């Protein structure tokens, strides 16, 4: 074997490069190898929802890393801003899966954004957590949904509202898939509790003048109004309702108010007395919630932006971490199987358990009354299962299912 200067230099360089990567590799393994993608709208129309969700990821990971990380490794966050544009979800989903090779994606807000990113992550076999309250029915082994679905929130809200206000209900809902589906659930649970929906009206998202509607509601004389109105334009309904002096005449409940902290935008006179149902309220008087609020305050300086979706995201990251710990691996199938053992965590909003057949969550639901811009808990239901999705979805029997079912009621 010839050994000239050039080949010596080459092999020396190769060896030193090898050792260097060897060291670097070890340092890297100790430093951080697990990557988590946070894909949320941090600017644009939905940043009110998205920003606190991303902050929740930051907070959860800081805690996980402070406690020594997962499997002895640090968890790194890769943040993507989808700018409230649906096509960016597909693009960043691909980037996270192929270029950044993340172990899990947390993200998505509107149902449309979820349906944009879900097939992408299915195809590239990257685990996905969707941490938003939504209309229910997604049945896919690669996704875990940690928010409340209609059967959980409406089921809690309806009996309380009917016993408090009366049996005749007038439903006002936003005119897209969420509003259409939730209004069916409202009718269903009204019947279950001896009530009756006398009329349902749908409103496009840009309607902001409700004068005619308020007159119509009065002529129908319901005992209470059920609102599933969504977004900034619809917020004017609550103002106009109060301005007409209707607050003292006809009561109101809502499935949507408060999810983006709308109760703070309305004055106490406009918001007081409206009944809601959610998994989380800042007013929850538990040690876990107090600790959570303290941590958030320390990290971000202001607890005002916290809302239902942010807490669901926080709990989603904790659930994923528990899954990884149980699996002892970040391999996608192993983590899914670990989560499917019905794993549970204790979050700020109480115990959250993965429902193995649907990949949705069983969690506490609280009936809430708006009082002085705060969400006061008036009744708590422990561990409510996602019955709606359970009625259509069984991933144990059909592990290859990837559909979103429209639940027939």
């Amino acid at each position, binding site marked *: 074997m010839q050994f000239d200067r050039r080949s010596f230099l080459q092999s020396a360089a190769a060896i030193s490069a090898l050792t260097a990567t060897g060291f670097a590799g070890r340092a890297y393994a100790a430093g951080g190898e697990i990557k988590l993608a946070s894909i949320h709208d941090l*600017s*644009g*129309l939905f*940043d*009110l929802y998205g920003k606190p969700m991303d902050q929740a990821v930051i907070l959860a990971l800081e805690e996980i890393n402070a406690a020594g990380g997962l499997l002895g490794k640090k968890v790194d966050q890769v943040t993507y801003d989808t700018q409230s544009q649906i096509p960016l979800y597909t693009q960043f989903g691909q980037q996270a899966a192929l270029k950044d090779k993340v172990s899990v994606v947390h993200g998505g807000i509107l149902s449309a954004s979820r349906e944009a990113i879900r097939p992408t992550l299915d195809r590239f076999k990257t685990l996905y957590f969707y941490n938003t309250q939504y209309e229910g029915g997604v049945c896919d082994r690669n996704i875990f949904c940690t928010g409340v679905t209609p059967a959980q929130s409406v089921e809690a809200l309806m009996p309380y509202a009917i016993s408090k206000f009366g049996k005749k209900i007038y439903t006002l809902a936003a*005119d897209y898939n969420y509003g259409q589906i939730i209004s069916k659930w409202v009718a269903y649970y009204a019947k279950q509790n001896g009530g009756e929906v006398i009329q349902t*009206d*749908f*409103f*496009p998202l*840009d*309607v*902001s*003048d409700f*004068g*005619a*509607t*308020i*007159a*119509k509601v*009065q*002529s129908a004389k319901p005992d209470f109004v059920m609102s599933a109105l969504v977004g*900034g*334009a619809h*917020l*004017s309904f609550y*103002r*106009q309702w*109060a*301005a*007409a*002096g*209707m607050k003292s*005449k006809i009561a109101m409940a809502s499935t949507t108010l408060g999810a983006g902290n709308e109760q703070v*935008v309305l*004055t106490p*006179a*406009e918001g007081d007395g409206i009944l809601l149902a959610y998994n989380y309220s800042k007013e929850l008087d538990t040690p876990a919630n107090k600790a959570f609020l303290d941590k958030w305050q320390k990290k971000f300086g202001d607890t005002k932006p916290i809302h239902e979706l942010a807490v669901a995201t926080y709990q989603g990251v904790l659930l994923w971490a528990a899954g990884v710990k149980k699996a002892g691996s970040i391999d996608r199938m192993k983590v899914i199987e670990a989560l499917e053992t019905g794993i549970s965590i204790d979050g700020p909003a109480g115990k959250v358990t993965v429902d193995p057949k649907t990949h949705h969550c069983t969690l506490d639901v609280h009936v809430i009354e708006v009082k002085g811009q705060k969400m006061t808990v008036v009744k708590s239901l422990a561990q409510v299962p996602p019955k709606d999705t359970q009625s259509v979805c069984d991933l144990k029997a059909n592990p290859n299912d990837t559909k979103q079912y429209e639940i027939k009621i």
Partner: protein
Amino acid sequence: MDFVSVVIIEVLYAIASLALISAGLAVVFGMMRVINLAHGEFLMIGGYAAIVSVQAGINIYIAMLVVAPLVVGLLGLIVERCVIQFLYGRMLDTMLATWGLSLLLTGAVTMIFGNTTTGISTPIGGFSIGAYQVSGYNIFILVAGAALMAAIFLVLKTTRLGLVARGAMQSAEMTSGLGHNPKRIYMATFTIGAALSGLAGGILAPLTGLTPTSGGLYVAKAFITVISGGAAVVTGTLSSAGLFGALTQLTMLASTPVWGDVAMLFAAIVLLRLLPRGITGRFFTRQV
């Protein structure tokens, strides 16, 4: 009977609010033939001006009726001096420029206030007619709309200023020959049109709450009303607002807001097919 009076109030209110959002555009488009695509943003900024003033502790009526029109009038003056004055008679260029302006204003407001809903409460409570509750603020809008229309009518018809303005719109050269400077008349007219938009934005702000993109809600309705109304500022706006307001509101009461908008657009299409120059192109032709 109670229900009938509630319906009448709602219909009159719908007409008044259409007239309010269209008044500024009617002056600018009807008199100067300037298509101001930033009209919706003028309304939106008027609304923000009112909300910010109220939050700063100013009386809500002063905020709506004085601050909002002043702010937007000033904005209109700047816009006219910097952009519009170079584009008179060039309709397509004006459209493009004002469209760009609308995007700019939306973006600027987004940067200042964020892309969220801002709002204040209405200053007037409700009252009851029999078994029905009616918003007192709707009555206020009704009165404001009527007063505004009357004021524009009186200014155009009875004052020397109005006479000169109408003259300049009919024949700029002739007015110039009589010793008036048409450029200054255009400037003043555009500024007043902008101030009217600001006033409307301020008055409507407590009712709906605002986002930086709220302008889009107004601009289509305002254009449909003004173009269907035809050239006469007051008569045109009132006749088309009356027609569309009543139609929309009655359809809405009978069905849903979706059908209300459908009815309005359908009526506008039929109307413009039959009367291509608007209502005042055929009827009330000698009115202002």
